[in-house]
């Protein structure tokens, strides 16, 4: 591997001048930011600000129009994500992600979901199926290891007793946690979470905070987080980046962001007295009885 070591300096992920155009629509316009190891970096912004598009560029679902995405892998050195094939990014660069609308393998069991996340290692161990078909010891050992890793994450996400359930039959909150567990089974250096708290109740959100902190502190990886739930964002984020209409409008610690006038304007809109159209004004005066 590359000689570059863990502390060669530079952030874990740096996004430089990222621009993404879809035809005439500019979804992301010259956004630059970086995320550090052992830090939770939140990306917030109103709907349609381009947050998920940033994730899709990072994880290889989109090829950015302009820009450079550099991942400083602790073991492999600097990797340029925009030059990698989409499906290679999770395993080679160690960037894992979850989805805004959960994407599990619903008809497969919870355990199978987690073992699938270790597909490439197991594929090699099975000698691309030849050794596996012959029932060789090498493959069985590798599979046992994969199960052990899956068990660890099942434990962390409190899904152990439901390991043999079909993933699609799990309650919503469990599915959210399972998706995180599956992403962690890839053994990533950067975990991208797209609205992990969406649809969770306050108790589940609090548990999620704990889980994310645990991942950051114990596994020492970087986390990128898209979230609308401010109770999650403000509590666990180390740094926050605010996007609006595809542009970065602010970056800083949670306290800085809370008091940033640009951010408040983006979220709450300008305060101005706008004359109502005549029809609407009439509607207000004479409501339909």
């Amino acid at each position: 591997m590359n000689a570059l070591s863990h502390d060669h300096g530079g952030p874990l992920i740096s996004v430089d001048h990222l621009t993404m155009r879809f035809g005439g629509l500019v979804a992301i316009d010259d956004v630059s930011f970086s995320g550090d190891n052992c830090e939770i970096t939140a990306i917030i912004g109103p709907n349609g600000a381009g947050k998920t598009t940033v994730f899709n560029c990072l994880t290889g679902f989109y090829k950015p129009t302009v820009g450079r995405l550099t991942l400083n892998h602790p073991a492999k050195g600097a990797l340029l994500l925009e030059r990698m094939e989409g499906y290679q990014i999770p395993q080679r660069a160690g960037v894992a992600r979850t989805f805004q609308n959960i994407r599990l393998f619903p008809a497969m069991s919870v355990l199978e979901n987690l073992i699938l996340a270790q597909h490439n290692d197991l594929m090699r161990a099975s000698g691309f199926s030849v050794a596996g078909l012959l029932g060789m010891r090498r493959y069985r050992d590798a599979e046992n290891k994969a199960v052990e890793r899956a068990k660890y994450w099942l434990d962390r996400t409190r899904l152990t007793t439901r390991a043999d359930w079909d993933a699609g039959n799990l309650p919503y909150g469990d599915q959210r946690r399972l998706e995180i567990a599956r992403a962690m089974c890839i053994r990533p250096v950067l975990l991208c979470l797209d609205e992990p708290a969406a649809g969770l109740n306050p108790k589940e959100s609090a548990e999620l905070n704990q889980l994310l902190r645990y991942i950051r502190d114990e596994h020492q990886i970087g986390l990128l987080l898209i979230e609308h739930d401010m109770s999650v964002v403000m509590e666990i984020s180390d740094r926050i980046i605010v996007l609006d209409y595809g542009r970065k409008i602010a970056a800083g610690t949670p306290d800085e962001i809370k008091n940033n006038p640009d951010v408040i304007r983006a979220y709450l809109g300008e305060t101005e007295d706008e004359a109502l159209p005549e029809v609407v004004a009439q509607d207000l005066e004479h409501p339909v009885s």
Partner: protein
Amino acid sequence: MATPSSEEFKARPLNLPALFKEAGYVAVVVFGLTIGLVGFKTEDVPGGLDIVTRFGQVILATVVAVAGRVGFVLLRERHFIPVLIGAGAFSAAMLVLLIGNIVDADQGVGRFLPFESLVVNWLITLFALILAGRAAWFWSRARPSQVAVDREAAMDRFSAQVQRAAKYFGPLMLGVAIMLPFLPVADRRLLDVAILVVTYIMLGWGLNIVVGLAGLLDLGYVAFYAVGAYSYALLATYFDLGFWTCLPFAGIMAAFAGILLGFPVLRLRGDYLAIVTLGFGEMVRVILLNWYEFTKGPDGISGIPRPTFFGLPFTRRPPEGTESFHEFFGLTYSPLDRIIFLYYLILAMALVTNFFTLRIRKLPVGRAWEALREDETACRSIGINPRNTKLTAFSIGAMFGGFGGSFFATRQGFISPESFTFIESAIILAIVVLGGFGSQIGVVLAAILLIGLPEFFRELQQYRMLAFGAAMVTIMVWRPSGLLAHREPTIRLYPDGPPEKEGES
């Protein structure tokens, strides 16, 4: 307690005098109408016209009409079960007679049809069916309704039980299959049907890899069957190679054809994929048909060598200097030997297919196929290469199709593009769909239902296809995922059932 809807369908007490009165009116009207019109018939006799009486038909018509009327009244008063049984039994009996009449108008059971006119027979059968259908519908409404989801769950539990039981009756079935040629009932015809059924079981298992596991709807599977058959036939006739030498080549050629098909369809899903695979199947057939110099086109290839038992041919008089199977083992020659050998050959090939599928399902590549079926985007997000995964599914599925094809060629001794039409793909796919996607035992059951039974009812000719279609429609309405579709996880954390204590949540 009874819900309002079941209240509506509750049986009301019968008013017997009123019922008799109504039946009496009907009897009088029908009798009055038919006595003149049906009861007397003019007939040509030498020297003029004669009048023939048909009072039997009049009485029959009256009885049927009264019975029908009583049925309607009972239905109106919500007494479904007698109507269902009566009308159902009557229409079933009539259908048997009518079909018997179609098969053989003079000799069979068709002689006993009640009415002279075939149209009248069909009409009253139709009315009886409608009556039975209405009774059945009311009856189903009267019972507490079972939601479709519940029924799916119940069927899934049933399928799971069948799969668990398959552990025990699977070896039993295998034992029967192995013993079959030596059973007293085994004659040439039964063995031929058995070979056909097992061929389709093998093809179904092969296609199950593509459709059931990887979820790639392939309507052109017969193309690989054809590639396998032609590979063997051409290699054998051009280079004079034996069956066993050609078998792996045929598989490899078919696998390459699978990759060839796989590349252009990598980005396609669902309906679009189905259309392209359908086109691919036709393309292969058209190429075989038109490349006359190479494949002899519509003339087909004849004189394909028969398989040998490790070099021992199954002939009465082998060529000079060689020994045949029966001479080597000191048996008397029997033409059935070759059939029995073919049966064991295809049985072994099918078992290899099954063993391979069961095994690979538990390997990373098999799990990746299933994951691909579930969600391709999620696959990419965890680093599974969708391209390679799809191509392996296509090529391995195709390989088994190719093996099946070379068996077909050696069994027939003659192949032509006629044997590889779309209907073959449709039948194989129907077996997989009917049996249940991904269910190995389901494929066996469906192949017996769709191939074995129709072979024994060949006399009914085109009506076989009608029954075939009806079965497919019923399955699509009643259980779209197939008869025995139940997915058992490939690995369990708790093989002996979940732990007693649930987690905190």
